[in-house]
């Protein structure tokens, strides 16, 4: 005749393991997948993005150089 009323959850479940102490999980891996498949539209958009970033970086560098008076006067 057991008189135990608590805990309701089996005792062996009542523990916590720190992620760094736990066994390693099998994660999603890209091994054997190669590069991501990109549609021509996405590929074009990414290439455009790269050109935009390079162009804007150059514009920003020019502006910073101007503000820092690193460029000769005639360039202003």
């Amino acid at each position, binding site marked *: 005749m057991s008189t135990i009323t608590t805990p309701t959850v089996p005792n062996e479940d009542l523990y916590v*393991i720190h992620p760094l102490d736990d066994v390693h999980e099998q*994660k999603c891996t890209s091994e054997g997948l190669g590069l991501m498949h990109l549609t021509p539209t996405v590929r074009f958009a990414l290439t455009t993005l790269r050109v935009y970033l390079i162009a804007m970086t150059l514009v920003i560098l020019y502006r910073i150089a101007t503000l820092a008076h690193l460029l000769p006067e005639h360039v202003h």
Partner: protein
Amino acid sequence: MSTVTSIPKIRVNRPWQRTVLSFLVAFGPGLIVMEADNDAGAVSTYMQAGGQYGLHLLWVLVLLLPICYFVQEMVARLGIATGKGHAAMIYERFGKAWGRFSLFDLLAVNFLTLITEFAAISLAMRGLGVAPILSVPIAAVALVGLIATGSYRRWERIVVILCLLDLTWFITAALLHPSWSAALHNTLIPSIPSTGKTGDLVFLIIAIVGTTIAPWQLFFQQSCVAEKRLRFADLKWARLDTLIGAVFSILVAGAMMLTGAFAYNHHLPFTDPAQLAQSLATVLPHRSGIFLHHALLLLMVNAAVLGTTAISLASAWAYGEVAGWQHSLHKKPTEAPGFYAIYALCVFAAAGIVLVPHLPLQLVIVSVQVFAGLILPSAIIFLQLLLNDRALLGDRWVNRPWNNWINWSIVAILFALSLLLAAQILVPNLFA
């Protein structure tokens, strides 16, 4: 079998205790990434926003809260699903060219940001009577020492404590007796300052966005989640951690703006937070003035320290992932020399530059915000593409359609701001 029994387990007595403890062991990366984003540049930007426009821009922070959360949630999910950092995923899924391009962008903007962090340390410590020639090298050595113990847990605990020190911002804001009803009104109801849409206002709003969501955060949180080896079952806790971090970070940003608004209400001009701290010491009664002066300067140092360790780690993790080096805080410096060298190089080089006399620091700060604002939308596009990579992630981890709607909307908003920024750079008097 023997492996399972040797795992250290923390026993608890009640199911709710297990729930709380499960959260606490997963807690950390979300809070750290969000609070470290309230770095020296952020302190300066939010206080400047308060100083120039009072409480009028508080609503911008509310709009940024969901953006912060949704972007960083994706990063946490990707980190848990793959166990790898963001740079590694871009490299593996988009190829070397994009991997190197993203890495170069990240390293460049991170380095510029680090210079601003050390500039803030120099400025704040000078306000406390310590010469930069002493404060900057000491801070740099301490920041390298912080990670060099070969223990992720130790680093995380220390940094979480530093994050919690930011609670002091609420005390500083409260001591300045702001109008809470006006603060609530401006938080909930967007308004444009009476000066109208000037170029300065547009630039400041873009700067607030740029400083609240920075590219390094994507790289940092994913690497941090991978470093902490969060498990699939930890995702809900990682989300809660990220949400708590986002709310805390926005509240702290609001407290910074309230502090700056004191200067607006009392017509105290200032160009940086250290100058405001000095003004407060003279304007307020002696005891509260001295307290606020010291608190603001120390909070500035804390913000810079948090920013420096997180940003330098983001760079070191990303470089290590792409270079294929050992890149872990679990390793000792002798076991991962390249990783620690990159971190130390970032810290010492930035500290060294700050000590160069007559460096145009204001120009560096502005450049950081502009550059970060420029590359952020593209960084989020890669994240969005990775989160739709069904071949890699399977159905369980990819974005749901509603995720994609929200995230593409965020990308569109950030791109619009980026283009606005570009337009203002090209035509400086556009909104004058």
